[in-house]
């Protein structure tokens, strides 16, 4: 095969960074964001006269992320960003913190290799390296989403599902004359843990992607990630190893007005310790396969997809299965409540604003999850022990104010837990939005209504002695955004979660082996309603004042019956 041309790299890159393009760019650019946020909370127990918990809590902070982008030459860009934060109530400098928020060097070496050193955002595929959105509070109406966005911004959770890591990456591509159009190569290596010189080794994440573009219709990919300890960096004789290998295929074909897409990914994983004297540590070897057929009409806006997937019980991929939310984390607002000062359970409000629930590092073991929030896909696409079919039908047309989709998920476990009988899973979700702005006003004002309904059900028949599982949860989300005057928005939202049923939650040891089960008799609800105003200074700056009222109730804990009223002031500007 004749290679016509090497070094494709990367006009897209040049546009993306704006630093290395053809146009003249400044050698130094300032970038960043500023934010002021204030909460006023009022907690009220509904079950008893709580004379211990202080009911009112005011908190907030002002911060500035100030970054400098330096371009010493057209092929290099250096960014440093510091965060200056001042908590409200700090006095004469108390409560003020200075942190380095990000630091990286990137550029193009020899016109061929694109590289980045330092802080990097990276993703590969949903089964290798993928930052899945948090449950329940993602893609919510703006009134809620503005709080989630603050948490996401602070933890570098980007919309592209990338993970923020520290390390190095390099990418390059080769273009060919015929048979194969292009080969792209991507590599990344980051450090997940640093040695403590005692029992913790240096732990490295490495990734590799080889993409083969056969034509505009067909492309293949080979992906490999490995998390491993470097032996000798501590006194520990055991080293962790976790390779994941997948292949992908994408096929596109337009027939008439219909675009047909076929996507597939399949692979294997391994999770083990080496040189470990204790033979009780398991060696998890898993596999998965996922195929999706999509259809979209280019004119009338109809689309649909059918997906089938199989993820074995032993499939592990910490780059894709690490959750954003650490359900074992601790709360900062009203951490203990009631006269007994018990730990307050995590609720949907906490998911929106509690920074301490969100880790930034990949976790070696499967993290805890809340079955009432998501018992079907708690670890995203890569949730182990699932085989399922997913059908989605939708409508989205720029000429129409209405867009809607219906998703149906039906699946079951691959391997039972405590029994050979498998759990069955069923979910249907309806999303609809009505963006009437362009149709009711010549000024193109915002006027939108959004509604979503999701029903989840987990079931498993019982036996004479073993109780059956039957857990269902329903989520109703609605929101509106009405620009009643130029740049002035009236916004509001409502979310109701109800759940009921019985589930046997597996309890796992440090090696992810199930050693017991915990009975969950769940029955409860969470309601969050909000209303307020937003003033948009520009696309990059707004001021928002919101009032939230939250009601929580569950049968597990008397102290879980409470209401929380909250005022929030948020000023945000990106520059």
């Amino acid at each position, binding site marked *: 095969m004749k290679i016509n041309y090497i070094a494709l790299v990367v006009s897209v890159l040049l546009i993306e960074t704006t630093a290395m393009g053809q146009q003249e760019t400044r050698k130094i650019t300032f970038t960043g964001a500023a934010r002021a946020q204030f909460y006023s909370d009022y907690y009220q127990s509904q079950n008893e006269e709580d004379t211990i918990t202080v009911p009112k809590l005011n908190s907030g902070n002002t911060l500035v992320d100030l970054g400098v982008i330096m371009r010493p030459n057209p092929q290099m860009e250096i960014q440093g960003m510091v965060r200056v934060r001042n908590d409200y109530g700090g006095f004469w400098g108390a409560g003020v913190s200075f942190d380095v928020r990000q630091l990286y060097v990137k550029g193009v070496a020899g016109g061929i290799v694109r590289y980045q050193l330092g802080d990097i955002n990276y993703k590969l595929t949903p089964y290798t390296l993928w930052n899945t959105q948090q449950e329940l509070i993602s893609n919510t109406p703006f009134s809620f989403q503005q709080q989630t966005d603050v948490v996401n911004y602070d933890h570098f959770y980007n919309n592209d599902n990338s993970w923020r890591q520290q390390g190095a990456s390099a990418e390059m591509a080769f273009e060919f004359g015929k048979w194969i159009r292009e080969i792209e190569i991507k590599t990344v290596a980051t450090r997940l843990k640093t040695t403590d010189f005692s029992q913790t080794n240096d732990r490295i994440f490495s990734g590799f992607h080889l993409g083969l573009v056969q034509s505009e219709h067909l492309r293949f990919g080979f992906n490999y990630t490995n998390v491993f300890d470097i032996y000798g960096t501590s006194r520990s004789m055991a080293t962790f190893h976790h390779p994941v290998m997948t292949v992908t295929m994408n096929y596109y074909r337009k027939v008439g007005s219909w675009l047909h897409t076929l996507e*597939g990914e399949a692979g294997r994983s391994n999770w083990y310790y080496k040189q470990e004297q204790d033979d009780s540590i398991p060696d998890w070897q898993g596999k998965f396969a996922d*195929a999706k057929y999509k259809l979209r009409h280019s004119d009338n806006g109809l689309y649909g997809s059918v997906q089938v997937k*199989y993820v074995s019980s032993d499939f592990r991929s910490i780059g894709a299965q690490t959750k954003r939310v650490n359900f074992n984390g601790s709360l900062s607002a009203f951490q203990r409540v009631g006269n007994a000062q018990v730990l307050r359970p995590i609720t949907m409000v906490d998911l929106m604003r509690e920074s301490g629930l969100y880790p930034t590092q990949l976790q070696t073991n499967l993290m805890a999850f809340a079955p009432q929030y998501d018992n079907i896909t708690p670890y995203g696409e890569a949730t182990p*022990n699932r085989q399922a079919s997913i059908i989605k039908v939708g409508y989205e047309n720029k000429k129409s104010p209405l867009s809607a989709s219906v998703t149906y998920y039906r699946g079951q476990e691959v391997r039972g837990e405590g029994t050979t009988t*498998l759990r069955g899973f069923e979910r249907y979700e309806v999303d609809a939005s009505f963006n009437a702005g362009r149709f009711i006003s010549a000024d193109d004002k915002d006027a939108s209504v959004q509604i979503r309904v999701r029903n989840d059900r987990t079931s498993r028949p019982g036996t004479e002695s*073993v109780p059956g599982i039957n857990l269902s949860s329903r989520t109703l989300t609605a929101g509106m955004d009405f620009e009643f005057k130029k740049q002035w928005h009236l916004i509001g939202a409502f979310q109701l979660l109800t759940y009921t049923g019985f589930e046997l939650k*597996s309890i796992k040891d440090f090696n992810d082996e199930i*050693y017991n089960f915990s009975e969950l008799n769940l029955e409860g609800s969470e309601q969050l309603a909000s209303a307020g105003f937003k003033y948009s200074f520009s696309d990059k700056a707004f001021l928002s004042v919101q009032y939230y009222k939250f009601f929580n109730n569950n049968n597990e804990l008397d102290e879980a019956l409470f209401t929380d009223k909250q005022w929030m002031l948020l000023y945000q500007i990106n520059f």
Partner: protein
Amino acid sequence: MSKKLIFPILATILFLNGCKPEDAFDGPDLEDIYGPFFVSELLTISDESIDLASGESTRFNAKFSKNLNWKLEIIGLSSGARHVHEEFSSIMDYNWNGATSILPMFRQESCEVRLTFENQLDTLRDTLAVQSIRPLQGFVLSDFESGVNPDWDPFIQSGSNMSFTVRSNGQAAQGNNYYDMGGTVTWDWLIGLLDIPASAYNVEHFPLSNNPSDVYFNTMIYKPAAYDNGLTLIQFREDDNGDGNYTSGQEDLWAFEISGGSDGWSTISKRYSDIVTLVNGSETAPIGNGLHEPDKIVKVSILFLANPASGYSQAYLDYITFTTGGPLQP
């Protein structure tokens, strides 16, 4: 067949293959947690009169309705000796060779057999008889049944209440006799010692394997509840140069200490290769060639020590033996 169909067909085959239900499951069996418990086959004992001296053993069998944690206890009604075996299963098929979990060792006596189950009220009981005690294991330095070997070389300080003597009062860990070490010495840590030369057994060196990882020194030691201040130091002198004698300061002297621990009898077993050189209780560099050579041991010394300011101290010794291939199984 169109090439376009290959991938969908392969994907479907792969998926359908994955849909096969697995026979295995993760975690403990839920039937074991929630299922009803009953004994489906009662406890049976294959030999209710067991002659341990001739190497006999007896087998316990029973069946239960589900897997659960069960505990089998064999309790000597005269000695108080206990053998305990715990297991998670639904079938009991256990062979007992007379081994002891909690000293003293079983004697010629009647024993109670008790089978209990975790989180269940049921207890199954039976009895058996031990006709003879287990044979001694390894190269036995002494079990004190015939008193102190006359070729040993004891040294006893002239303190008060000194009791370096063999006793036979029903408290022995093995057999009938044990060695009582006790006394008060106000001017020295050493209360008394026993030097056990190889010559006491008519050999130049103790007849042991030359593989230090294979040789274990074992003894049974008793700590009275009233005294915590005793410290027993065991020393091993090697004849590195093969002249038949140990030369102080030139040849290896390995040692380990026994102190603290729980009240009552316990079995101490130490692999010879794990024993170090001690000076005033601290590990130090070997004195001789630095090689653990059990086949060159010419003398074992047992020193009983206590802080002179701590008053009376006491400990008992029984069943001192070298074993090969593993520690002593009492």
